[in-house]
């Protein structure tokens, strides 16, 4: 077994342990198509999952009204990638945004990002989150879809250290290790996914 294959397998196993969805894709186009499929399959009223169905206080309830239609946010993509994913969204009637996340704090459907690296031993994505838009997109979305290249997966966090150090020195810097979806067990130690951030994390491993 090649080293990359071994690391991809280990990464997949560990990420699934924390309820991430992991798929392998052969191209970015395949990743975009996957993203739109996930978006389509999401409930029509996306906010159902997020608490808008509950009886809320007035200020919290008001936030639920700020969301017009299904939204995919993908800040941080280059122009070509942005055009490709944006085009697909247009075809499928999904609103596509790359900025102004602060206008959508009530929530968006999908945040689409590309990770710089992955850590196999814990199924962790390493995401350069210097951009405020990107950071917000990965937090206010209900589903986070993240692409990581197979070749960028390292075995341990120690192997990732040079990458982390380099990113941190490119200051001001904000690097995120993301492992699974946002979770809590603060009420009776019962696991609940999606307390503040995404309810689902989809990881697409891009083969070389």
């Amino acid at each position, binding site marked *: 077994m090649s080293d990359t294959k071994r690391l991809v397998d280990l990464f997949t196993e560990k990420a699934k342990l924390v309820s991430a969805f992991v798929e392998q894709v052969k191209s970015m186009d395949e990743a975009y198509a996957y993203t739109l499929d996930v978006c389509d399959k999401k409930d029509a009223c996306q906010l159902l999952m997020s608490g808008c169905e509950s009886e809320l*206080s007035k200020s*919290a309830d008001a936030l639920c009204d700020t969301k017009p239609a299904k939204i995919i946010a993908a800040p941080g993509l280059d122009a070509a990638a942005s055009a490709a994913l944006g085009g697909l969204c247009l075809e499928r009637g999904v609103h596509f945004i790359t900025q102004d996340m602060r206008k959508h*704090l009530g929530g968006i459907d999908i945040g689409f990002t590309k990770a710089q690296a992955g850590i196999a031993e*814990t199924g962790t994505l390493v995401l350069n989150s210097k951009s405020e838009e990107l950071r917000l997109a990965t937090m206010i979305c209900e589903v986070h879809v993240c692409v990581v290249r197979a070749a960028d997966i390292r075995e341990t*966090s120690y192997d990732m250290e040079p990458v982390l150090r380099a990113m941190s020195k490119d*200051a001001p810097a*904000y690097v995120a290790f993301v492992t699974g979806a*946002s979770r809590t067990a603060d009420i009776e130690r019962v696991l609940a996914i*999606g307390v*503040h951030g995404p309810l689902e994390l989809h990881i697409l491993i891009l083969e070389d």
Partner: protein
Amino acid sequence: MQTARDLKEYKGELKSALNNEFLREAMDKFAVAYRASREKAFAGMDLETLVREVAQGKDQAMARMDELFAQFKKNAEALGVTVHLAKTAREANEIIGQIAQKAGVKRLVKSKSMTAEETHLNHHLEALDMQVTETDLGEWIIQLRHEGPTHMVMPAIHLSRYQVADLFSDVTGAKQDSDIQKLVKVARRELRAKYVEADMGISGGNFAIAETGTLAICTNEGNARLVTTLPRVHVALVGLDKLTPTITDALRVIKLLPRNATGQAITSYVSWISGPGECQASENGKKEMHVVFLDNGRSALAKDPLFSQVLRCVRCGACANVCPVYRLVGGHQLGHIYIGAIGLILTYFYHGREKAKNLVQNCINCGACKANCIAGIDLPRLIKEVFARIQDEEGHPLQSALLAQVLKSRKLFHTLLRTAKSVQRPVTGGTPYLRHLPMIFAKDQGFRALPAIAEVPFRDRFAAIKPKVASPKLRVALFSGCVQDFVYPEQAEAAIKILAKHNVAVEFPMDQSCCGLPVQMMGERESSRSVAAQNVAAFEPAGCDYILTLCASCASHLKHAYPEILGKDPKLAVKVQQFADRVIDFSSFVHDVLGVTPAEFAADGKKTTYHSPCHLCRGMGVTKAPRELIGVGGMEYLASEEEDVCCGFGGTYSMKFPELSAELLKKKLANAEKTGAELLVTDCPGCIMQLRGGLESRGSALQVRHLAEALAARMK
């Protein structure tokens, strides 16, 4: 939070906690589930080495605290962070209050920070007319209830979903379902609105990395990412103990911290923030960022030869998770702000004697916290030391001072025991138990029958049974401990029988006395030191191969505590080390040194279960030998649940906190009985006193024997 004014009030609180059924059930489930998930999380890892590395790394960092602070400050300020140093909790609050006022802040969101709990930051900001919202779900819940945390990682673990539903109904003004998933979503929505309104975010920090000026934060909920992103000002409040030299040092701790906290390989998010980045909520498009370091005694602690190790703590909460007392009474009774074993110590330093004085007495000294600490902090020892200091500061209670005086003179102590024997008949009724104790001694002791003093102590029997060995293969000096000398001499006799058969010469130095653990537990350092020195003098360590003891508590005290107690005395340092190096427990001696075989025993296949004494399995690290000896001796070993959880004895602990001792014993005996065994063996006379006493008062048929007795009885 500690509000009890004295031990009596504190005990009253313990009692009501014991009666809280929801808490008891929740804590029980948690204790069992945690143990399993921790084991799974560390499977295949060399934990011992990793713990040593974390401890060393933290120690080295704390020794360079000033230098690391200067380095962090320089690097972070170069990135545009303002770095502050607060000497006291009040100063930290004032600094943060001023930052907020200067920035015209009205509303704040906060992600979890134990340091901000330590300084009571929210109260300070609220007094300045600011609105602070905790965004960590558990912290938000306890904030709304105006309570302190009951766990460092799961602050609302003491509450049920129904209580949370009622609370959320009040907050939203709408009736909420008790479905946990729904409650979490309500919090998501309500808190999202708070982030949107906030002008300032306050976070804690797990690491302040000096080499890059980076603040690293671990969270599962992701709230710290929103807190540090949405508002235009970010203030991090961290203790000086969070200073970390390099990214490598942080990664090393991250490998262990989430595993030990919740059994997770890593938290959902680790954010590495180096300098203030862009922020669209700010007029100039840039975040305003401050890091406030809190000293509050930490820089002095770093220089303390004994207590500097508390700064290794990474706040994983494991010392609470595995504490049998925490399991019974929960965090409000076992901490002030910081919870669990580390909380008992930190409370004294960060919140003062008044808050700590009752708490520190509530450690049963089972060592579970130390065994599970990923920073290798010697928690039980430090708790005892805090207790001793408080007694030195406030004066020693009469009872404790008396015992200390008595123990210092072996002759007086033994004379008292002999006198007790001669006058005990009215209370024993001729049985081996103290049946009719006057109320003053028997208060709340009904859960167990206390043993009588033996007719003839072991020291008076020894001359007659001393093995006559012409050319011994080993020379052993026996340390009986008080209980085997004066209560259960038959246990030591049984051991002699086995040793004699194996051609081992045995000496019993007559000047030996109590090992000193009881006075050490009571905070009587001077007496503890005095008896330790007497015992080292009584045994001429160079003259024997081993110092054997059948008492697990004595063994771990002699082996590990003696060098700590006496090692700094130049006159005793060599002797005490020689002494400690020779100390061995019964099971290890018989199993590993003598290497007894099944052929020596008449097997009867008796169904036998085992209690693993705290001071043997954790104190001495002995787990295999005794269990294997049960089989070697021809008995059938039936494993019981939670074999290595404390039986509730804890020496003087069971006299001070009988209700808690009784509960621990009840659980222990129920587990033993559930195996269907007829015999319960263990290798500590203190545990035997507790177990046998408990079974006697329940009228159970299950027999309790020291492993030495069980083996000697089956020897061919």
